[in-house]
C-alpha cells in the first residue's frame, strides 16, 4: 500500500468528489422530479412539464453521465496519488 499521507489525501479527494456528485444526483431526481416540480411547471415539454420529464427520463440520463464521470475522475485520482492497481 502507498504511504499513509498519500492515501489520506486520496481518500479526502474521493470524498469531495462523492459529495459533489451526490448533490447533482439529488437535485436532478428528488429535486427536479419531485420537490421542485411545482416551480418548473411553467416550462412545458411535449404536453406536460419539465418536472414530469425529469421524473420519467431526465434523471436516468443524468445518472448515466454521473457514473461514467465518476469512473473517469477516479481513474485520474488513482494515478495522481499512485494508488492504481
Amino acid at each position, binding site marked *: 500500500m502507498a504511504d499513509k499521507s498519500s492515501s489520506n489525501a486520496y481518500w479526502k479527494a474521493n470524498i469531495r468528489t462523492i459529495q459533489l456528485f451526490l448533490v447533482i444526483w439529488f437535485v436532478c*431526481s428528488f429535486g427536479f422530479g419531485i420537490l421542485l416540480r411545482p416551480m418548473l411547471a411553467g416550462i412545458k415539454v411535449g404536453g406536460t412539464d419539465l418536472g*414530469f420529464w425529469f421524473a420519467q427520463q431526465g434523471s436516468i440520463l443524468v*445518472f448515466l453521465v454521473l457514473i461514467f464521470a465518476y469512473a473517469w475522475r477516479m481513474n485520474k485520482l488513482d494515478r495522481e496519488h499512485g494508488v492504481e492497481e
Partner: protein
Amino acid sequence: MDQFTLNLLVVGATFVLYIGIAIWARAGSTSEFYAAGRGVHPIVNGMATGADWMSAASFISMAGIIAFGGYDTSAYLMGWTGGYVLLAMLLAPYLRKFGKFTVPEFIGDRFYSQTARTVAVICLIIASITYVIGQMTGVGVAFSRFLEVSNTTGLFIGAAIVFMYAVLGGMKGITYTQVAQYVVLIIAYTIPAIFISLQLTGNPIPGLGLFSNDTSSGAPILSTLNDTVEALGFKSYTGQHDTTLNMFLFTMTLMIGTAGLPHVIVRFFTVPRVADARSSAGWALVFIALLYLTAPAVGAMARLNLVKTFYPNGVDQPAVEMTAIENDQNLAWVRNWAKTGLLTFDDKNADGRIEYSAGDSNELTVNRDIITLANPEIANLPGWVIALVAAGGLAAALSTAAGLLMAISSAVSHDLIKSQINPNISEKGELLAARISMAVAIAIATYLGLNPPGFAAQTVALAFGLAASSIFPALMMGIFSKKINNTGAVAGMLVGLVTTLVYIFLHKGWFFVASTASFSDSAPMILSIKSTSFGVIGAILNFITAFVVSNATKETPEDIQELVESIRVPKGAGAAVDH
C-alpha cells in the same frame, strides 16, 4: 400457424439456447460456482447485471403500474436506476478491493464477528425470498397466458422450470446465459414499443414518442391521455396525486435498496479490477436504461390503447358492444386474457356494452401485471411479436430468480454451513447444500406467490425496503466509518430489519397472510408512509443505532482499522482469496 404454437416455438427456442449455454459453461469448482472465476469483462458483466437486475418487476409489471398510476409511479423509474449511482460511488469498488465472494463475508470480516455474519445472512435471505415471490407472480402471469392455463397452474409450471434452471449451473453458467437473456428481453421489450410508438405518433423511438403529438388528434400524446382518462373519471395521468412525502421516501427506499441487494452487489465481485467495478456499474445502467427510458412510453401508450379498445368511437360515445368482445377478431386478446382470470368483464347493467370507468358503472377489471404482455395484442401486432414478448418476460423473470437463488444458496452453504456449522464440509457437500437451499427457497416463494402481497413490482419493492434498511447501511458504514464496531453493526442491522419487517407485516399481514393486517396502504399507520416506502426510515434507524451503540462500546481494533484503510485504495487488489 396459431398463436399458441407460435408461443411454444419461440419460448422453446430461447429455452434451448439458455440451457445449452448453462451446460456448456457448467460450473466445476466452488469458486466458479459463486463468482465466475473473476474473468468477466465490464461490458459483458454490465449486460449480465442488466439481465439479473431487470426482473419480472421491470419487464412484466412496471409498465402496467405506470400505465395506471401515471406520474405518481415515477418512483419506480428513478429509484431502480438512481441506486446504481450509489453503488458505483459508495460500495462496488471497495467491495471488489476487499476480494471475497459474498456480502455476509464482508460484513463478518469488517465487523469481526460471526454474529454479524449470521445476521447479514438472515437479512439477505428475507430480502431475497420476498424478491423471489414477486418473480413467481410474474412467471405465473406469463406462463398462464402463453400456455393458456389458469394463473395457479402457470405458477407451478414456472416454479418447476426455475428450479431446474437454477440448479443446473452456478454463476458462470448464469453469467453467459444472462447475456443471452438480456438480448432476448431487450429485443422483446423494444420491438412492440417501436411498433406502437409508430402507430400513435409516427416517431420510431418510444422514449421520444412519449413527448410527441398523437397523429390522429394532432395534440401531444400526454395531454390526449389526460383528457381521455379524466373524461372517464380517472385521475389525470401527469398530475401528482400521491403525497410528496411518500413519493420522496419511496424513491429513496428503492434507490438505497438497489445498492443493498446482494445479488446485484455480488456482480461487482466478478470483475478483474477495482476500476472495472466502477465502470461496470455504468455499463449495467446503460443496458438497464435502454428498457427504463422505453417503459414510461409503453405505459402511457398502453393506457391510451386500452381506453380506445373499450371506446372505439371516442370516450364521449357508447362503450364497446358485448357481441364485439365475444366475436371480433381484433378483440381476441380480451377473450384470451379472460381465460387466465387476470382480466374480467361483466355486463352488470345488461345494456349489451362493457364500460370502463372510475365510477360504480365500471364493468372491467384488468390486472396491472398483464399490460406489458397484452400490449402487442391490444395494438394488433403480428403473432411473432406476441410470442417474443412472452419469451422476453420469461427471460427477465428466470434470470433474476436464478441470480437471487444463487445469492440465497451461497449465503446458506458458504456463510452459514461452511464457516460456522461444519468447516470441514467437502466441496461436493457444499454444492449439495447450496442446491438444497435453492429448492427450499423456491418452495417457500411459490407457496407465498399463490397469494402475493401485491402486483409483481410492488412485492419486489418490499424486498428493496428490507435490503435498504438492513444491508445497505451496514456496508456503507463498514467502508466509510472506522468507528462502527461489531456490537454497533449487529444492533443497527437488527433494528433496521425488524422495524421495516414489522411495518410491512402490519400493512400486508403477518408473513403476507392478508387477513392478519392491521393497516392498509391506502390508510397507513404513520402519516402517508406506505409499507413500500418505509425502508429508508428503517435505514436511518439502523445508522443511528449503530452510531450510538458503537460510541458506548469498545473501540474497533487496530487491525480492522487497517483493513478499512486498505479497502479504500485500489492498489494491491489481487484475485479473490479462496478458503
